[in-house]
């Protein structure tokens, strides 16, 4: 075991440092950046946890250079594996494109109906009494030349009162800079994170151009390539709740 552990450690170092070839945070090519589950239509809405037997909506966000209209998404059945159940009934819905300076934000919607507790029991008797199950989804993004599989999972509950069912990080936003702000060549990006349950969260910043000091930090510096109008996108995920939030800011640099 020691050999394997040290091997993992040894491999982890170069993998952790493998960012020299290109950077994830820029919009040099289209790239998936987030999948939300049951996201709020309005900020004032109340979060609805995925429940057995209910419909669940997924939104796949893709960051793309302007005019990436050829991009399509389809459902891809995920591999079977023991810790999660494959989400069988997922169907693709509409695609919307929001254009921001230097970047498009594509949003693919998909819906599925989760199996009821009865159906789960019929599928596997050991699941008849389950209060929490994880469902795995899969998408396949393609522009005809390049394809990128997207996968993830989320928890679903037998009832809304199951402990943990209401955990979420929704309401997180960008506190700095303000939208449409005029800035210098270096911009401080700062997230205002909603994390009432104190779960482990993960921040990811994306920008239309420029360089970030640390795209995982709650607060970081963004160096712009020159004057112009730019876009910054913040994503935040709750590692336990699997809820996620996205926020966008555009800025102008003289």
């Amino acid at each position, binding site marked *: *075991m*020691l*050999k*394997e*552990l*040290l091997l*993992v*450690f040894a491999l*982890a*170092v*170069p*993998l*952790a*440092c*493998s*960012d*020299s*070839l*290109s*950077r*994830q945070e820029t919009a040099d090519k289209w*790239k*998936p*950046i*987030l*999948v939300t589950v049951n996201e709020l239509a309005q900020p004032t809405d109340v979060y609805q946890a995925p429940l057995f037997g209910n419909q669940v909506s997924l939104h*796949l966000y893709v960051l793309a250079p302007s005019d990436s209209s050829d991009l399509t998404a389809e459902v891809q059945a995920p*591999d079977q*594996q*023991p*810790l*999660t159940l494959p989400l069988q009934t997922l169907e693709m819905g509409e695609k919307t494109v929001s254009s921001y300076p230097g970047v498009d934000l594509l949003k693919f919607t998909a819906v599925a109906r989760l199996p009821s507790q009865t159906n789960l029991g019929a599928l596997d008797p050991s699941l008849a009494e389950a209060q929490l199950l994880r469902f*795995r989804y899969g998408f396949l993004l393609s522009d005809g030349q390049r394809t*990128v*599989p*997207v*996968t*993830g*999972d989320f928890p679903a509950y037998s009832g809304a009162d199951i402990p943990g069912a209401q955990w979420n990080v929704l309401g997180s936003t960008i506190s700095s800079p303000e939208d449409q702000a005029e800035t210098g060549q270096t911009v401080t990006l700062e997230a205002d994170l909603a994390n009432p349950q104190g779960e482990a969260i*993960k921040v*990811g910043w994306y920008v239309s151009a420029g360089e970030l*000091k*640390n*795209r*995982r*930090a709650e*607060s*970081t510096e963004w160096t712009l390539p020159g004057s112009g109008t730019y876009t910054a996108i913040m*994503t935040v*995920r709750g*590692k336990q709740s*699997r809820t996620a939030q996205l926020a966008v800011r555009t800025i102008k640099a003289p």
Partner: protein
Amino acid sequence: MRILLLLILGLTFDLTRVGQGFAEEAAGANAPQIIELQILAKGTGRALKRAEVKLGTEVFTADPEGRVRLSLPSPEALLEVQRAGYEAQFVQAKDLWGKDKASIYLLPGKPDDSEVIITGSRRPEVSRKTVSVKETNRIAPGGDPAQVTQLLPGVQSSPGRTDVVIRGSGPNDSRYFVDDIEVPSIFHNVANLSIVPAQQLNSVDFSSGAFGVQYGDATGGIIVLRSVDQIPEQPRTEWVLNVPFYLGIFHEQPLSATSSLAVSLRHSMLEAILPKVLPKDLGATVVPSFYDSFVRYLVKDGDITHKLTLVSSRDGLSLLVPSANSEREDGRVNVEFQNYFAAVGLEREQNLGDGWRYRSTPQFRVFRLKANFANDNLYLRGRTFAAPTEFTKRLDRNRSLYLGVKPEWNRVRISAKLPVLNTSDPYFDPEDAQRLEDSRTYTYGNVSAWSALDLGWGDLVLTPGLRVFQSQLVPGQGVDPRLQGRYALDSEQQLKFAVGQYSIAPEPAESSRKFGNPDLGYEKSNQYVLGLESKWGDRWQSEVQGFYKKIYKLIVAGGPDNFQATGSRIVYGAEAFVRRNLTEKFFGWLSYTYSKSEERKSDADPWYRSSFDQTHVLNLAGSYKLSAFWDLGLRFKYNTGDAYTPVESASYNANLDKYSPSYDEKNPYSARIPDFHSLDLFATYDAFYDRFTLKYQWGIQYLSLGKRVSSVSYNYDYSQKENVANLPPIPYLQISGEF
């Protein structure tokens, strides 16, 4: 730069002094003189007994203190002072006139290519090579003895690798010793330095496989650093300044006619230098550090020799590297390793008479291993008491009997906070995995016993042997039969062969009820070796060997208990070794290994290339002594690139906002990094002062044509791959002093 200029000036100054062989004192009177001369070796001030002083037709011989008393007839007389191995000095009597006493220093003689220096050999084994420290000093940059193991046939090589892969077996499958004291490794993690400095060593024994029954719990090879076992005639102190790597000091002191004490200490300087010289905008901080100490108390009293040895070593590495997965404010990830061990052992060797000898080395060892990666960590601590003892009986001229036993007690504590590996989950990611946080203590004993017999019939010598062993980590006992043989075809050529079974017990964590599989047995290996050793006069010798090794019941990850003994590995190949024996002027060797290594996880699986497969390994090492002062050397290395499993595709993990690679598991290790080659050049200049010597060593390591690649690296979504360059050519300077 200023330091370099001072060194060059010092060296220039020294070159102007080397011809001055005697100390000048005040001028004397103008009458016949009685004078006492003391003849000393320049550079050490050591008295040269039996030195001769010729005065006309008379020859005076120096006493054990190097002293000669004679009468100078006139100031015009000429004295010739000489001794074998030193340059003769001619001294004008007028330079000594008026003195009662004078010292004359003789420079070491010019290198002699006519005399082959014989290095001792121990109990012969088919695949063992012994390299003396005299030899390693000539071909290892910095004179580090253990480095030569990486130049020998059967040893695989990778850029930056400091552990040893022997005939397709991983570093943990080999065993390392300082005399009979087992140590976890023989190298520091940086600079390819061994844990014991050259001054403390006599020779390095290296067995690439098919070793004798006195060694067990290994399926790879055996490396033994043999420490000095002679009482020095006089005190000796050496210091070493190696820029940029380390600082060291060694002192050896005879305590009586039968006892001596030697102490050495080395400490790295990298941790002080690197933070100052690394560019501030590099984004990464790398701080390696190490130290080692070695104490040897030796008593040789008639038929009994006692050697008390204390060896300790610590290596540390601290890395702060930029990472997209960092949760720190500065976007970096902290990685730390610390590896410490210490051992104390008392070796007693005694001639019991009537052909019986025995050697026993009760020893106590401790080790600590710490590894931190971001928020995960692993901490191992262990203590071991062992008492290997071997009796030897010389039955007659052709037969010798060996009987040995090694009881061992171990206590290991493992504390870990690590991701729980789930190899069956295609979406597994350590970042998202559950953490296992636990501490466990394992106490277990091992015992082994062995017997071997040398049987000679004319030109044939056979050595059958048997090793029996039991480990509390493994159910049941094990028995390994082995047979070695040598047949002299003529006075110059010897046919050698070996066949044997080798076993290694699982590690505590692998057989643990908590972490692993308590039903694991011994990993087994059957090894076959056939070779021809040839002497070509007294200057050259060569050896070719073919080998086949099958490892079965190999422990592989997988199954309900995390580990299962279902794997197999085969390694086969051939080695060639041509060696120019050591003379004062020239020494070197050429070694080449061709090998194939394949592995499978179970009998139902297909064979695939092993991670340790390296088809070609070529080493050329040589040293030529131009004069008593100058020595030039080179090492050239070529090897097939390391194998790795390429990434086939990658998917975006929406849970973690990162990409998960899918490796080509049907063809593990199907890709290779480019072949590797490098050239090291070095020169040594000895500057002799009357009572001390300064040794300057310059060199440049890692010269190459084109880019030297150490690994491959993928970008964030695994759509691009690039070769990671290895270290650029590194010049170094080492200054050591001996007095």
